[in-house]
């Protein structure tokens, strides 16, 4: 996922800065491709650049923020990575007027054909379209729920400035995909660029991703803490579920319309709760409230029954 893009580095001419974060550990030799070419819907155009980004350092822990510098001659740098130009044509260079980039894992062919799967899309402006120019691109269907698009017109500098407390992967996606959590109004000048850089200088080097299952165990009738997920303005529906195992299969819907849920404190047994968060991720200025649902981690709740003792009997 993208956390920040500087598409017009007034502080360092000709360099694009992209801040990425991964939700799983990145092993050595893991690679992905990034291109600012236009996606036509079935392949790429070939007038712009493609970069191969490969992990050469040790395993990168999930949540670590990676800063990628790519200059307009097609050379890239990032500690622990090799970034090389993967096409024979023009270099990767985000256009200051408006541009998009797509990230995928797979292969690139100079004809514009690719293999693999898309992971992420970023747009310095609001709309995705197939206009045949270098300032536009279609959005791959796979990325309807994984694109960062500006809510306004072309923005040179944008970054995530929301909360950074520890939450699950699903909640992080909800947060990052909420454009209200982004800095969208930096002025296109050196000061704006400096503000962008200053922000990341003080930003954590990683975002904490909750991987464990929070547990609560009580005796029937005792107090339980409410279960909570992120309270984000882009969420249009919270649907809580309960299951007898750490699985979504066969789960029972138990509560809606709130980022918090108060589980039963008398339902004896061990239960796993989770929340599905459906967000509004606008596409081309149109609200999209039906396609994008993200799931929280499980919350384990164990209710032990209170002993039920029979009356005392006096025996001979």
């Amino acid at each position, binding site marked *: 996922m993208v956390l920040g893009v500087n598409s017009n580095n007034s502080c360092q001419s000709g360099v694009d800065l992209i801040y990425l974060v991964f939700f799983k550990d990145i092993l050595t030799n893991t690679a992905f491709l990034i291109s600012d070419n236009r996606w036509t819907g079935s392949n790429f155009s070939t007038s712009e650049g493609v970069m191969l980004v490969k992990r050469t350092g040790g395993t990168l822990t999930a949540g670590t923020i990676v800063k990628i510098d790519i200059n307009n001659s097609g050379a890239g740098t990032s500690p622990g990575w090799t970034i090389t130009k993967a096409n024979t044509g023009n270099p990767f260079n985000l256009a200051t007027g408006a541009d998009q980039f797509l990230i995928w894992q797979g292969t690139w062919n100079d004809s514009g054909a690719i293999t693999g799967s898309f992971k992420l899309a970023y747009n310095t402006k609001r709309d995705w379209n197939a206009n045949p120019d270098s300032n536009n691109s279609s959005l791959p269907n796979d990325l309807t729920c994984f694109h960062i698009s500006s809510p306004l017109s072309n923005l040179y500098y944008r970054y995530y400035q929301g909360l950074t407390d520890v939450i699950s992967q699903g909640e992080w996606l909800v947060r990052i995909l909420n454009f209200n959590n982004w800095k969208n109004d930096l002025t296109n000048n050196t000061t704006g660029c400096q503000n962008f850089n200053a922000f990341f200088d003080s930003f954590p080097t990683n975002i904490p991703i909750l991987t464990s299952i929070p547990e609560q165990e009580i005796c029937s009738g005792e107090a339980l803490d409410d279960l909570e997920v992120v309270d984000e303005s882009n969420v249009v529906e919270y649907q809580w579920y309960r299951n007898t195992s750490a699985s979504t299969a066969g789960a029972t819907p138990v509560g809606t319309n709130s980022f918090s849920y108060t589980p039963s404190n008398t339902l004896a047994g061990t239960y796993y709760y989770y929340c599905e968060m459906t967000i509004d991720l606008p596409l081309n200025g149109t609200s999209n409230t039906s396609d994008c649902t993200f799931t929280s981690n499980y919350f384990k709740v164990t209710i032990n029954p209170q002993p039920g003792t029979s009356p*005392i*009997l006096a025996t001979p």
Partner: protein
Amino acid sequence: MKNSTFKLLAALLFGMLVYTAQAQDQTICEGAVKNYTVDTEAPDGANPDGTPGSWYAWSVIEPAFAGTITAGDDPDGAGTNDSNQATIDWDTTPVGTYTVQVIETTGTCVGDPITFTVEIVSGPTAPTVIADPSAICSGDEAVFTITGAPGNVVTYTINGGAPQTTTILGTGEVDVVIPGVTADQTIVITLVATDGSPDACTTAVTGVTATVTVNAAPITSPIQAL
């Protein structure tokens, strides 16, 4: 009957029922040894461990309790005196009303206390005995009158013989009659019980005794003609 009257009677009846339920569950004698159990029937569990996964803490709430509680080990609990069965030796616990309490624990969950009320009563008061009359002539019957609480069963011996028993009548007295005695008769009362049941409370008795003195009949010489 007015509805309000019916409600009042119902409330009174309920109150009586509650009062009845709160009365003592068991009456025992001083020094008795008694057994108590919980959770011995399905689905709570079987002997000797009670509910699977549970263990039990037995106590007698009142500070005056001066006995001992032996419950044995429930393997579900960490203790060695935590089974679902307890034997309480009330020992020297004084007369009064006591509350046996058991608290069941399952895992980290502690159940509500379950209580059982025990009333300890004292043994019967020692009876008295008199010889009535205290002297008789040889060949007459000796009569001892024992006075005590109606229903009490008195154990006694006559002249050191085998122990015998008699029950004090509703009048508060009972006579022990020994016909045709020719020698002194001494009764010694050794024990008194509240009744004849096996669970009756008893009191050992000492120093309660009486004797009928038997006088020889006068011997008169034959009449002689002067």
